């Protein structure tokens, strides 16, 4: 048994080393600048750096819009599947899993092609205005659409787990026979019971949108992740400092979910 314990602590120790050293080293890198000694300059400079506030705000706005849209689409659909359209269930499941098979880079290659149709074929139609509008650099709605698709697998799993724990049919029937209309039954009987799952889905989507780089960069927009990379060339310390901070924020968010809904199981998308 003693040998087994030694082995176990060895494994855990090595894992601890591997996972903690890069984090510790990042912090050291930001405060211990060669030739300047100990300085917190990188952290104090963040807010005054060009583009930080605007790119962060853009990311947060995109995240809010994505969460709102994906929940608005998914919650009624998932509830309806439980209530009266079980035959559609495999369809929705497949639709929500398909984005996993398409890597983000391939997805954005497709989006880019569609967006090019605008100037090439549609310049005389009203659709062209739509194409221009969804690519407005101040709020690129096309990113929201892409993020909704990319969030579908996670949101599906989170909501499915939440709905499995509740007897939706009984809840709705009870609410209906107490005289509630459909919207009321949904809003006051079903949704409160899904609070954990809704928060879970929202947090996962938030983390996805805040960290997303591939689609935004290739479509030429500059939300947070793209901004960090752009600033890293000229200000290495600053970009690592922002990474450390954004990591902390994301981790706190994900730990909150872990506390809410048990273990989170999602695949990463580097």
């Amino acid at each position, binding site marked *: 048994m003693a040998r*087994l314990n030694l082995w*176990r602590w060895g*494994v*855990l120790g090595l*894992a601890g080393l*591997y*996972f903690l050293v*890069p*984090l510790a*080293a*990042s912090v050291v*890198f930001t405060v211990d600048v*060669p030739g300047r000694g100990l300085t917190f300059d990188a952290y104090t400079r963040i807010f005054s750096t060009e583009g930080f506030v605007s790119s962060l705000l853009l990311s947060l706005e995109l995240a809010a819009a994505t969460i709102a849209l994906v929940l608005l*689409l*998914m919650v009624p*659909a998932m509830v*309806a599947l439980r*209530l*009266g*359209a079980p035959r*559609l269930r495999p*369809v929705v499941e497949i*639709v929500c899993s*398909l984005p996993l*098979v*398409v*890597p*983000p*880079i*391939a*997805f954005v*290659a*497709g*989006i880019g*092609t*569609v967006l090019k149709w605008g100037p090439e074929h549609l310049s005389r139609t009203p659709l062209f205005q739509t194409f221009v509008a969804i690519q407005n650099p101040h709020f690129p709605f096309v990113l929201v*659409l892409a993020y*909704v*698709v990319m969030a*579908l697998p996670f949101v599906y799993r989170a909501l499915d787990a939440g709905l499995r724990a509740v007897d939706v049919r009984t809840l709705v029937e009870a609410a209906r026979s107490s005289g509630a209309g459909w919207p009321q039954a949904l809003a006051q009987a079903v949704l409160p019971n899904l609070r954990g799952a809704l928060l879970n889905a929202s947090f996962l989507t938030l983390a996805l949108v805040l*960290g*997303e780089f*591939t689609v935004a960069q*290739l479509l030429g927009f500059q939300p947070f992740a793209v901004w*960090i*990379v752009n600033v890293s060339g000229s200000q*290495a310390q600053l*970009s*690592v400092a922002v*990474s*450390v901070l954004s*990591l902390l924020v*994301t981790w706190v968010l994900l730990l909150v979910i*872990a506390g809410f809904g048990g*273990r989170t199981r*999602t*695949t*990463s*998308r*580097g």
Partner: protein
Amino acid sequence: MTATAVRVDTAPAAAVRRRRSLGWLAVVPLLVLTALAFGLPALAMLNGAFSVKDPATGATSYSAENLTASLQGAYLTALLGSVKLSAVSAALGALFGLPLAQAVVTSRFRALREAVLTASGVLANFGGVPLAFAFVATLGNAGVLTRHLGLTDKGWDLYSFWGLVLVYLYFLIPLMVLTITPALEGLRVQWREAAQNNGATTVQYWRHVALPVLLPTLLGGFVLLFGSAFAAYATAAAMVGSSVPLVTLQIADALSGNVLVGQENVALALSLDMVLVAGLVMAVYLPLQRRSARWLA
């Protein structure tokens, strides 16, 4: 059928029908949006991958030319580079993830277990730009460890194949721990006891009992890790630029017109190659997952 029976039945039947149509109505917006935001780009990719524009006449025709081009020269190198990188890092991730998960599962400390599993959930989601910068700050050219340990003189280079493997393991190992833990928890204590009572050593128990039961989950985990590493773009883009040939980097280059103009369709063909590989990964993963679920139910 009597009149009364009909009257009794119609009310619920109507309600069910109404509910059915309501179900359709609630699902339709979701399907319409995915058709627009996902189906349209997918079709555009497929269409573009197969269409070739004649530079002289401007006429477009369909052929497999782009696909052939995507499997030749630098593109083939990149595709193979991605496959090699993903296979190596997935194998190492599985190799290191298994003992870590085993150490955690057999531990008597519940707090340790919960801490490691929660941390794994967080780390498995940790990819992309911040991960790249954390490693650049640690082991990059001016990284803390590189400077203090003088690693450059010893031939260390983060912006290389093995550098990328080291970075990818940072999210692949936790992903493996999450994937394999339920299976390890499913190994019954009685199986080990029975093996011991029959005089089996630890090695024999692992070889003849535990590993065969774990094999589908292990393979499934490997395939999942492979897919995850294969699709990764942000980490590599923020870290190495294009010093390591990767298919994601090639696609990005071709799309942004960094190389030759008119390579967009080859980029789409490369994307199609990627989707096929990812689809293959899922086709292997799902049955394996189902099989391990049957064993460990």
